[in-house]
């Protein structure tokens, strides 16, 4: 498998050269192969979101490099980066991040409009995607008129509509009930298996993490452990993840 995303000595500091300067990530080197499903876990404040923001071009590292498909993101201009994001990356967030001023249909169509897809193609594509997510009947609604699950599905539709190579998800199930959460995971799993989409997802939930093929555990700004699922059943993998989390909590007890 080819490397689709790589970080070399990724370091991120905040409040540079100020009294309260703080290094959130300390020289992380990491590789993601095309078609992998990676979960990022770790205690609160460990640097998971900082890590995901840096690998997804939302933020830039203080030191080190981020390469997507072999291209160093720092070498791109802001316009190139925008185009690159629109063509290669799909984002799903815990807070959905849909535009409240636009209907679900308009939100989902936005990446297509940005890519200058023909007007006649937009409606069928949005409707087909919405059908898959079971939100076809609420496309004319505004996000504020939808439930959390419906909004998250809308956000997923928007993330997937351009058939991105990589999906970046930050706690995507954090605001969903168990049923919606399971549906989301089944969909992500299907995309990964059937279409070979690379998925990098931050989560706190061991059950969600058990769908992945690799678990990256970040603690205090470094990758402390990596667990490969390989031939494990989902149950065995789930137990291993739970064990890792429990040992972390046990450490605090002691």
């Amino acid at each position, binding site marked *: 498998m080819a490397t689709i995303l790589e970080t070399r000595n990724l370091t991120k500091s905040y409040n540079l050269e100020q009294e309260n300067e703080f290094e959130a990530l300390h020289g992380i080197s990491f590789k993601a192969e095309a078609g992998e499903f990676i979960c990022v876990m770790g205690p609160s404040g460990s640097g998971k979101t900082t890590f995901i923001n840096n690998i*997804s071009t*939302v933020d830039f590292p203080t030191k080190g490099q981020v390469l997507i498909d072999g291209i160093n993101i720092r070498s791109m201009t*802001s*316009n190139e*980066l*925008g*185009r690159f*994001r*629109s*063509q290669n990356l799909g*984002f799903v967030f815990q807070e959905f*991040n*849909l*535009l*409240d*001023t*636009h*209907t679900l*249909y*308009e939100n989902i*169509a*936005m*990446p*297509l*409009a*940005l*890519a*200058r*897809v*023909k*007007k006649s193609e*937009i*409606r069928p594509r949005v409707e087909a995607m919405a059908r898959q997510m079971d939100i076809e009947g609420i496309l*004319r609604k505004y996000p504020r008129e939808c439930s959390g699950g419906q909004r998250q599905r809308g956000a997923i539709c*928007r993330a997937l509509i351009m058939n991105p190579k990589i999906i970046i998800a930050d706690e995507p199930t954090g605001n969903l009930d168990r049923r919606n959460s399971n549906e989301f995971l089944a969909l992500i799993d299907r995309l990964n298996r059937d279409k070979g989409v690379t998925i990098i997802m931050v989560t706190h939930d061991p059950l969600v993490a058990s769908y992945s093929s690799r678990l990256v555990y970040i603690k205090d700004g470094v990758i402390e452990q990596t667990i490969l699922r390989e031939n494990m059943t989902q149950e065995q993998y789930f137990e291993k993840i739970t064990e890792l989390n429990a040992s972390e909590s046990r450490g605090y007890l002691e």
Partner: protein
Amino acid sequence: MIRTAMRSLRKDLDRAGFFWIVFVLSSMFMFLFFHLAMSDAIGVTLINSSNDLPTYLTVFNVGLCIVVIFLANDFYVKKKSGDLAVILICGGTYGQLVEFLLFQTGILMALSIPVGIGLGYLCFPLLALVFWSMSGCEVRLSFGLQPVVFTACVIILEVFWCTMLNLGYSYRNSILTLLKGEEKIKLKTPKLLTAPAIRWVYPALYLGCAALVYTCKDAPERMLLWGFAGTAAMWGMVNKAVVPWLEKSVSEKWIHDGDKLVYMGLFREDLKMARLYIALFIFTANILCALMAGTVRNSGEFMLCLLSFALLIPLLSLSLMFRFATEASGRKKQFDTLNRIGYTKEQLRRIKNREVLCLYGFITAVSLVYIANILTALGIFHLIPSSIGAVIAALFAGSMAVCGVISSFQIQNAA
């Protein structure tokens, strides 16, 4: 409780700032107007007042300032609903809520009245000069106690009523509703009024009423009637024709245009906020123009009307501008999201500029249909000099243009 109120003020500095500026501008305007109206040249006295035009004008101007402050208060307190809920959850009483609310508005009021009166005092020589050069009536700047007392009284009364209103808002709503914040209730309109064919009646009425002002040669006060009917038609036109048309166009016509899809969608939301201001613009222009037509033979009263226009229109424009800026500054997250899904910085800059252009352009055009027609009609009937009509129209368009440029600058730097 006082410390909590202070913290709450600091937490929402932008909204508090907007509220404060509205207080300052209103008190400055009221002070200037009271000073002018109560001068020997005009002679308004609110004690043993007579039912003459300057008295009506004074009441109208003060009333409009009160409306502007109420709008700002409404906008401010909706954001505070979370804080009110937390106080109630922690066992606070409604008495403590009064303390919390009164302290915040009290501080803003205390900080604004001296600034407003001070600014008014500084602006007064210029105003007196304009007044004298155009009407021949001399108004001397005497720091009379009456205008200050009246201005302070109006603002203090307003703060009291605002506090009562805010308290009523928290009393009517459950803690859960307060925590969720602004939840809009969709009011149902009778189907007949929303039928596709009826929708286009509103624009026709709006334009028709504007045209009917030309029929009021013998009775210019009838213009008021057409103006009010036009304001109501404008409300229907924005709600039932313009917004639905924008909804349809954004979803169908402009869906393939990345920039237009975003800025027209944002403009559609802005319009819902701006329609009240458009109504106020038309309403104010309508009343003042009609009053002006009736006072053209008395230069002092005529100038008083003209100066009311010159002060009220910028007050309304600034109030709209601050309201828009405060709303737009909360859109940082939306623009971050757009950036994440692939919009470049350059595109976002363009989108923000076009949104501002659409909003201010629409408000200016819709209000000018009335302002320009009323003024043209008054000019044709020789009720006001054409040059004055041109000055008034230019003043309105100029105020909007200046506020539009400032809004554009603010929104570019806020997000």
